[in-house]
C-alpha cells in the first residue's frame, strides 16, 4: 500500500481516485516534501512545453492593390453619386410616408 507521500505524483497527474483526494490534500498542505516534489513535476512539465511542435500557419497570400485606372475612378465616382441620390430620395420618401400618414389618420370618433 502506498504511503501518502508516494501518491504525490499520481495526484499531480490528476490520477488519484476522487475518494482519496481529500485525505491527500490535507497531507499535502502540511508536507514540505510533497510540495517540493510537486514543483519538480510541474517545472518538468513546463520544460516539456518547449518540445511541442510549433503551429504550422498557412502562408498568407499577398493581395495586390487594385490599379488606380481612370475608368475605375469614373466608375467609383458614378457609384458614389448614385448612392448620394438614392439617400436623398429615400429620405424624402420616408418623410412623405411619416408626415402623410399623420395627416391621413382618421378622427378618433365619428359620433
Amino acid at each position, binding site marked *: 500500500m502506498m504511503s501518502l507521500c508516494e501518491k504525490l*505524483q*499520481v*495526484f*499531480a*497527474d*490528476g*490520477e488519484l481516485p476522487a475518494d482519496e483526494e481529500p485525505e491527500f*490534500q*490535507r497531507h*499535502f*498542505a*502540511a508536507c514540505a516534501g510533497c*510540495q517540493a516534489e*510537486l*514543483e*519538480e*513535476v*510541474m*517545472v*518538468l*512539465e*513546463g*520544460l*516539456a*512545453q*518547449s*518540445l*511541442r511542435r510549433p503551429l504550422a500557419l498557412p502562408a498568407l497570400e499577398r493581395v495586390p492593390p487594385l490599379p488606380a485606372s481612370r475608368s475605375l475612378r469614373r466608375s467609383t465616382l458614378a457609384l458614389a453619386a448614385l448612392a448620394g441620390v438614392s439617400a436623398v430620395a429615400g429620405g424624402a420618401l420616408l418623410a412623405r410616408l411619416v408626415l402623410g400618414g399623420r395627416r391621413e389618420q382618421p378622427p378618433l370618433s365619428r359620433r
Partner: protein
Amino acid sequence: MGDVISLRPVPDSGSWEGGGTALGVEPAEEAALRLVFLVHEPALRRRALRLTRAREAECLVRDTFESFLQHRDRAGSATSLVVWLFAAMHQLYVARSQGRRLLRLVRAESAPPENAPAEPPAWAQVRRAQFARAVAALPADIRRVFELHAVDGLSYDEIGACLQLTPMAVFARLFRARILLKDLLRDLVEGGISA
C-alpha cells in the same frame, strides 16, 4: 499608468476576454503579453485541471497570469518563461492549500499573503536544446511515456491504450523519467555543459 487588465475566462470556451491595459503596460507591450497568454494558456489549464476542479482551475490559471503581469521582468527568455509560469502556478497552488489548512485549523479570516514567486530550481534553468538533449538521452520506452504525458497531455489510460501498458506501468515509467531527467539536467547545469 493604464487600467489593470481584467482577465476573465469565457465559460466553456477555453478563451479569455479582457479590457484595458495592464498596470504599467504600454500599448505596444500588450500585444506581446496577450500572445504569451495565447501560447501558454492551454498547457497551464491542463496542468491546473490535473490539480483541482474546473472552477478552481480557471482561477488558478488566471491568477498565474496576473502574477506574471506583476512580475514579468523576472520571467526571462521564452523557455524560462514557461517554466516560470508553471513554477508560479505551483506556488499559488501551495499557498492556497496552506490557506485552506489554516482556515481549518485556526479559522483565520484571510489566507497567507502571496508573495512574488521564487525562482525555479537551478536545474530547470536550461535552454530548450539542453532539455531536448536530456529527453533524447532517456531510454526509448520511458521517453515515449514522458512525451505523451507531459507534451501531449494524455492520461495514464490513454497512454496505456497507445503503448499497450497498464496504468501502473505508465506511472512507473513516468516516475522513472522524471528522476532521470532531473539527474541529467543537474549534470548539464552543474557540469556547465552547453547545448
